[in-house]
């Protein structure tokens, strides 16, 4: 399970970084999106990968860390998802504006010579 999640994060982040370094604005946007997915999963697994355990300690049960999942990373990742969603939407608008104003989708606003 850990290995699968680790590979998933690696693939998402690797693809994200590669796309981020590409010269077209749409690729950069997709790269940032993939990177943020990778980062979100990364935050999530910082509370350890556990299957079928609730994030709440049951009534009367002892605070045994093996029997419940850490709720904090789940709360953090929710905030991170909302923020990255909002900023990606904003970036999309800027990308479209740049495309309209510079008549090219190159990140520098001009084609390579």
């Amino acid at each position, binding site marked *: 399970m850990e290995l699968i999640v680790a590979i998933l994060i690696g693939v998402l982040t690797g693809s994200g970084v590669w796309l981020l370094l590409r010269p077209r604005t749409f690729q950069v946007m997709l790269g940032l999106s993939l990177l943020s997915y990778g*980062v979100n999963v990364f935050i999530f697994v*910082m509370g350890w990968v556990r299957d079928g355990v609730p994030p709440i300690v049951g009534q009367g049960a002892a605070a045994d860390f093996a029997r419940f999942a850490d709720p904090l990373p789940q709360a953090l990742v929710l*905030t991170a998802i909302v*923020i990255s969603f909002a900023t990606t939407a904003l970036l999309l608008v*800027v990308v479209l504006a*740049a495309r309209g104003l510079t008549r090219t989708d190159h990140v520098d606003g001009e084609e390579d010579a």
Partner: protein
Amino acid sequence: MSPGNHLVVLPIVLPLAAGALMLLLDERRSTLKAAVSLVAGVALLAVSIALARLADAPLPPVYAVGSWPAPFGIVLVADRLAATMVLLVAVLGIAAIVFSLARWHRAGPRFHSLVQFLLMGLNGAFLTGDLFNLFVFFELLLAASYGLALHGSGTARVRWSLHYIVMNLGASLLFLIGIALIYGVAGTLNMAQLSARLAEIPAGDRVLAQAGAGVLAVAFLVKAGMWPLGFWLPSAYAAASAPAAALFSILSKVGVYAVLRLWLLLFGGTIGADLLFYGGVATLVFGVIGMLASQDLGRLGGYSLLVSSGTLLATLSRADGAVTGAALFYIVASTLGIAAFFLLAELVQRSRALGADVLAVTAEAFDLADEEAEPGEKPGTVIPAAMALLGLSFACCALLVAGLPPLPGFVAKFALLAGVLAPDPITGRAWALLALLTLSGLASVIALGRAGVRIFWAVEEPTVPRVRVIEMAPVAMLLALCFALTVAAGPAMRYLRAAADALHAPQTYIESVLPPR
């Protein structure tokens, strides 16, 4: 909780409420919006002055949001450093708002709301005592700054804002990775608790925590514009509209602030000092070369921001109370000076046709072009002898940025060098800093002097720009504050020295957040 304690949360709540209120108002009611924004700015200034006095206590005031006790809830800590930065934010906010009233606030939608949200994000980032909350406030201030960077639109702004946004989104993701690593190892995000807990981490896991801190530092240093992470900064700031650029002059200081706070609190300034020193020196050199090479006043301002970032990083790496105190004084002086410079740059360059830097479509959409021609509208009081006044202000800014007497830039640099050269066997690094700071001052004088000569003296047919009182007033206010800072350098230095000492002995910070039971 005493009512005085609620003062700590006001610098965040006040701009939030004002900004949200203005979102409800129609875009055409610009006078009302300007009034709301200005009142909120002045109230923020009053609050932050009161907060600065409140913070001048042995134990900094702590505000538990929602009354949740410290390690479980989020705390706001108003120590001297945070209070000073909040005061600086309020001053810059008022200057930018007043300056924009002449015409910039009508160059695009929702200007005043964005300014207020930026002020909120900045205040929150300075006050918070929680690492994740710091991220949230960073995102808030960045989101507002994206809007402000684009304010006025136009090809250049959109182009450079794109770089600015992508760089900062990338940095935010690094920020999250760093937070996740630190949380995974230490199990807390409260900065005071982290400081206590990092020492107890077993050696094997400590590497992970340090890696997390390193990733965090990269995210902060992108904001501070450290070489090689700061290439986006001069162009983006030069392209931004003048009031936005003036506010941005404190954005890079947020990065420096975060590095300073976390580095001293979590690691006591022990690891990574070399990196900060060499990074700072590289930034300083790059900024100086950029200053000498740039022709445009906006870019000159951007590069002088890099010079100040570099100076700060290189000197702060000493992790010494006297040097840090002087560096805090330098933060205040250079931020005020560069903000005034950005405002002034726009006024000076106004001899170009009106609205040349505003996209034609925007000008049409917001009736900017007709403003001057319209007979019914009063043009506002136009200052006579504008050129002389502008020249005088420009000279003041140049003295301030270059660090020459009698302005506080000199006091700050002198105190920095005195602190650096104080230990008895003067190290090679101290000599290098002495040489670099002196040379950077010389280079600033050359670059700014050359620009001044070209603008004010070497003009064939001088076109006197129309400068209104309302535009000159914020510049004059910022410069007058700088003069006041020179006169009151003693008390200011004492306050900031106390702030620096508290940073270097974080025990009081930890105790006020987590009172010993």
